[in-house]
């Protein structure tokens, strides 16, 4: 029986790692620009296919119907991760300039629609280039099941778990120690004051969208061997990740990561009890958290002085 609970914990953490990575990418733009990229899911899928294309090109083929078993071997996978991160980061610049900047800070929620629209464009472009097929992506460390005290987990799930934690720690250090991080926090606190202090606010905001894009692209490639790549894979993950970010606190990157992991584990354990309550429990939890702590479990309360 203990193996069952350990399995639930491990499975929950590995799915939670995916949520955590994407939740963090939501948080970055929110903390600096007070806007969200509602096409984060499409960014994740887009990143997965950019990475997959790199894997195929490095393997000397472009046949999506026959991905070689060793397509992710050696340095190919890291190369795919980096390329996807960079390219989706560049897409991040575009979404900021085209879909966010014209509307940010203005009354109304136009940026919600414009970011969703940008995602639809991105997905349609992806469909033109790559088609609607679901593509299997081999894991860099093989598909075998690793047994830990009777519970099974796959190598890629451990990779996602570990990299989510590492990225969280690195990101935390950047935000707290580096000049860039301090500038981002300053812009988040008050763009006007930051601007008066000589910080290039627009540049910092662009930087936030780039970082968010990089993370989404990175997440896409990392998740693809677990979920199989499809241009529709990102939406489901990003919805849950967003829920995780709300629970953890959108303006606290640490909280977002924690929220993502928590959501994964809760889903897994509720599934052990009554699987029909899995989705319900997630959203009941959101309502409870928002009722008690409107800024999320770890979110800082912002007080607007009038």
């Amino acid at each position, binding site marked *: 029986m203990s193996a069952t609970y350990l*399995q639930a914990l491990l499975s929950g953490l590995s799915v939670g790692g995916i949520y955590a990575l994407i939740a963090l990418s939501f948080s970055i733009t929110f903390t600096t620009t007070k806007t969200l990229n509602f096409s984060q899911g499409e960014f994740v899928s887009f990143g997965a296919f950019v990475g997959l294309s790199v894997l195929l090109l490095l393997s000397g083929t472009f046949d999506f119907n026959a991905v070689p078993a060793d397509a992710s071997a050696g340095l190919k996978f890291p190369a795919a991760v980096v390329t996807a991160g960079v390219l989706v980061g560049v897409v991040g610049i575009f979404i900021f300039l085209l879909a966010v900047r014209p509307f940010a800070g203005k009354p109304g929620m136009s940026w919600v629609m414009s970011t969703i629209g940008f995602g639809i464009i991105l997905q349609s472009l992806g469909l033109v280039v790559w088609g609607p097929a679901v593509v299997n992506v081999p894991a860099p460390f093989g598909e075998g*099941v690793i047994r830990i005290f009777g519970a099974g987990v796959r190598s890629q799930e451990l990779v996602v778990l570990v990299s989510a934690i590492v990225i969280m720690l690195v990101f935390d250090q950047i935000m707290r120690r580096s000049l860039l991080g301090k500038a981002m926090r300053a812009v988040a606190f008050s763009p006007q004051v930051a601007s008066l202090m000589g910080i290039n606010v627009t540049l910092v905001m662009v930087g936030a969208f780039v970082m968010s894009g990089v993370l989404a692209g990175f997440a896409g490639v990392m998740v693809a061997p677990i979920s199989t790549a499809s241009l529709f894979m990102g939406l489901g993950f990003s919805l849950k990740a967003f829920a995780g970010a709300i629970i953890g606190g959108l303006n606290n990157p640490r909280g977002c990561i924690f929220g993502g992991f928590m959501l994964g584990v809760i889903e*897994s354990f509720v599934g*052990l009890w009554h699987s029909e309550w899995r989705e319900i429990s997630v959203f009941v939890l959101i309502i409870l958290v928002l009722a008690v702590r409107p800024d999320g479990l770890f979110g800082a309360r912002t007080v607007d002085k009038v």
Partner: protein
Amino acid sequence: MDRRDAGREEKTMHKRNMFKMAAAAAVLTLTAGTAFAQEIKIGFNGDISASPSAQSGQAGVLGLQAAIDDLNAAGGLLGRRLSLVVRDDLSQPPRSIQNMSDLIDNERVSMIIGPTNSGNALAWRHIPNQKRIPVIGFSGSATDITKPMAAGADNYMFRVSMVDRPQVAALMAYVKRNPASKVVGFMFETTGYGQGGLRDMQEIAAMHGIQPAATERFAVNDTDMTSQLNKLKAAGVDTLVVWAQGAPLGHLLRSMEKINYFPRLLTSWAADNKSFYDAAGPQLAERAIFLRTVTDERSARQQQLFDRVSPRLASTSSFPFAAHAYDGMMLYAAAVRQAGTIDGPKVREALESLQGRYDGIMKAYERPFSRTEREGLLASDFRWTHWKDGRLVNYGDDVVRSLRQEDFRM
């Protein structure tokens, strides 16, 4: 003739020529117009670009086009050429409904093949019934698609494809007949497709007196189902019947491997999809048993069509949809010949009482439809299938061989 006269003569000539040309143009337009009116338009409405099932839609269009090419090469239908009008519904019900009206009211098609997804057929099947235009399904397998809008009402919905209910009937017959199946569990995906299948499973299980020990669910995007599987394992389930789409079925098998629990696995035909094979991997994929209309062990006629369309098929596992659409078109053509018109109600009546025999890609059809029978393919036309070395091959074991007609309860 002086120069002035010559000029006048020239002008008159010019005028005459102009008139001639205008007359010729008018005649040309007129002939083109009649040729246009004489063409019989066939519509296709289904997803060919926007969802994982789009590959099935693309295959359907290829099969339909092949049938139309063959008919045109043999002189058309009632002496008129056939043309194909394709509308992509992007898998979205509102778009699919709009396409339906566009095809019938603006394009004036005489028959429609589609849609790719069951949900869209359920969203618009009232439209062809009101407008009295026959529709032949080639992909969507939901049981309710071909039911009449009201008891005894004229029904314009036909289908040459897999149907959920007889599939479930066959799987339940297997469970009932298998001496090793003592504790049965159900699993389903929380989409319309999964829930429709669960309802069929529960109803037919009840007819057999089969009582599932547990019923578990998962979401279509889930990648880890170990929690639900651990519950089934704890309940001692030795036979698992699952209704879900290809990719989540693949993830289910991967989760089974994680906890090293492998009950006898009977699934929906979505397991024939490449997305299932890829997600599960070549070894795990071989564990699923399901039904299909064509296996990779093709008949000569199937191989012929396969050779024609396969260079343009995104995935060879979507070939059955090309074969279904081909046969659907040919059965319609036979009905038009019998009725001697493309008038909707008369063609429907002809379809419901087809004379003679049509040697199709899937089988030899003899009076395939009637006022109550809407399915071109029946349970007896389905093949037990599993994956073997990357191919979809016929599956056979003692239980399958022992199945009798009376075991199939619907």
